[in-house]
């Protein structure tokens, strides 16, 4: 119980002023700490770029893009087989990842009351936690063992499965960001729900979905583990996805663990090219969806 009546505020005011100056100091302090942390986070990124460019740029030439693997002893050789393999497999994986992922995301976001939604949400979360190599094993058991053949298709399937949960989540999140008033506007025009979703809601969320897909593409482009016993790798040029296929991460690994400095340079160049490929794919997708708006 406090005494009713006049409070003595004369001390409070100076206290508030004093605290204000200490607040300013802690604000500056926090700003400095955050800036330093940001810089520390950026160091590995720039270190990677510096390392790859300094070690790999000398091996990036026309030959790198026009020739495939050459056994040691022969001079030259490039990574055409791996570039084609990665482009093809990631492309096929994206078809799987986008079809299943976007459909799943639509289901989770637009049919929230459905009984299956919590289950699909859970399965998607579990799927995103499965190690890439296990995904490779699953596809190995499903496809490679039954067809008795390693293939680019099997590799693409493993990568596609890895993409699905990422695409599901981002699709769900960006669809939820589309205001419900837009949905209502569509329904109030006498349009069936599926039409509103496909023709009104989905276009409004395109750029966000593309960002999610590109994140997934970036993630799987660098995966070697799920390809080891699915696509298997291939030292010869092969563009037929029904046969074993090379991939950038696999070739980089193969070159990097070798004892030959020539191959080390190829590995570094390959890593640099892989990063540039993912980066430019992201950039192109961004620009393309921005123009559509």
């Amino acid at each position, binding site marked *: 119980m406090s005494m009713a009546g006049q409070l003595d505020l004369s001390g409070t005011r100076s206290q508030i002023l004093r605290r204000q100056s200490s607040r300013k100091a802690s604000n500056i302090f926090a700003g400095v700490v955050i800036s330093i942390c940001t810089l520390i986070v950026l160091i590995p990124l720039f270190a990677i770029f510096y390392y790859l460019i300094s070690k790999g740029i000398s091996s990036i030439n026309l030959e790198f893009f026009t020739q495939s693997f050459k056994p040691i002893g022969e001079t030259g050789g490039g990574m055409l087989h791996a570039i084609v393999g990665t482009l093809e497999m990631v492309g096929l994986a994206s078809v799987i990842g986008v079809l299943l992922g976007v459909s799943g995301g639509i289901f989770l976001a637009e049919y929230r*009351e459905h009984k299956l939604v919590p289950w699909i949400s859970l399965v998607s979360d579990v799927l995103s936690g499965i190690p890439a190599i296990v995904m490779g094993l699953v596809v190995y058991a499903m496809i490679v063992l039954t067809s008795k053949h390693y293939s680019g298709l099997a590799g693409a399937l493993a990568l596609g499965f890895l993409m699905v949960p990422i695409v599901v989540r981002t699709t769900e999140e960006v669809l939820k960001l589309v*205001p419900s*008033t*837009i*949905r*209502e*506007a*569509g*329904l*109030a*025009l*006498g*349009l*069936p*729900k599926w*039409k509103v979703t496909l*023709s*009104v809601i989905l*276009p*409004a969320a*395109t750029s966000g979905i593309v960002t999610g897909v590109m994140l997934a593409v970036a993630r799987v482009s660098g995966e070697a583990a799920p390809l080891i016993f699915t696509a298997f790798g291939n030292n010869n040029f092969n563009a037929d996805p029904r046969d074993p296929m090379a991939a950038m991460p696999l070739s980089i690994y193969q070159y990097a663990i070798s004892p030959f400095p020539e191959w080390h340079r190829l590995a570094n160049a390959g890593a640099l090219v892989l990063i540039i490929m993912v980066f430019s794919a992201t950039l192109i997708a961004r620009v393309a969806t921005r123009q*559509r*708006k």
Partner: protein
Amino acid sequence: MTASTPQKVILSAQDVAIYYGTKDAVRHVNLDVVSNTVNALIGPSGCGKTTFLRAINRMHDVTPNTRVTGKILLEGEDIYAADQDPVTIRRRIGMVFQKPNPFPTMSIYDNVASGLKLAGVRDRKILDGIVEQSLRQAALWEEVKDRLKTPATGLSGGQQQRLCIARALAVQPEILLMDEPTSALDPQSTARIEDLLGELKKDVTILIVTHNMQQAARVSDTTSFFLIGDLVEHGPTDQIFTNPKDKRTEGYITGRFG
């Protein structure tokens, strides 16, 4: 009210109650709406006027745990009957919302044409004709006729709301529901939309929810006063505002509460 055309009841609510879960938001509303009139629903916040409006084109179907009881007859047919398709109902009963909500990725033209296009109308001539007619009805044609292909989001708030009216009109509804269509707009835009209503009622029957009593007095032929989920009084606007029968109506319109 003009008495030039024979009076026809186009919409009739019979003992309508609306529940959110177990809470009744609207109770036992009985209301007849005559075709080609403007009907205002007024009342303080939370009185159930928007809830009632949304029941008329079955918008509550999309919110879980919402239940509508009683009957709402559109030209004698219960829109809540088991064999009625909400999609068809909404085609006949259009809606304009509180905040302008043009489709963000579409041009002005595509916004207005969207209802028809997505329903399968492909004929360019028909689409062009209806888009122009709808934009003229919404008094927007002159302002946008040279930039029909530009994004709808580039319009001002007031223009966007008239675009939404045009979009709703393009599918040729019999009834147009308007949920506080001017509450997010400046006075000039509000005046333009109010002026529209008098013209529009030649073609459609209008139910308009409004917070603004003066607006109801300006634009409507009949007024319904809602209070805490009850339809307290319904009658010709003149009578409601000059000679209300219910003490609560009088209290609200004279500004004693609300």
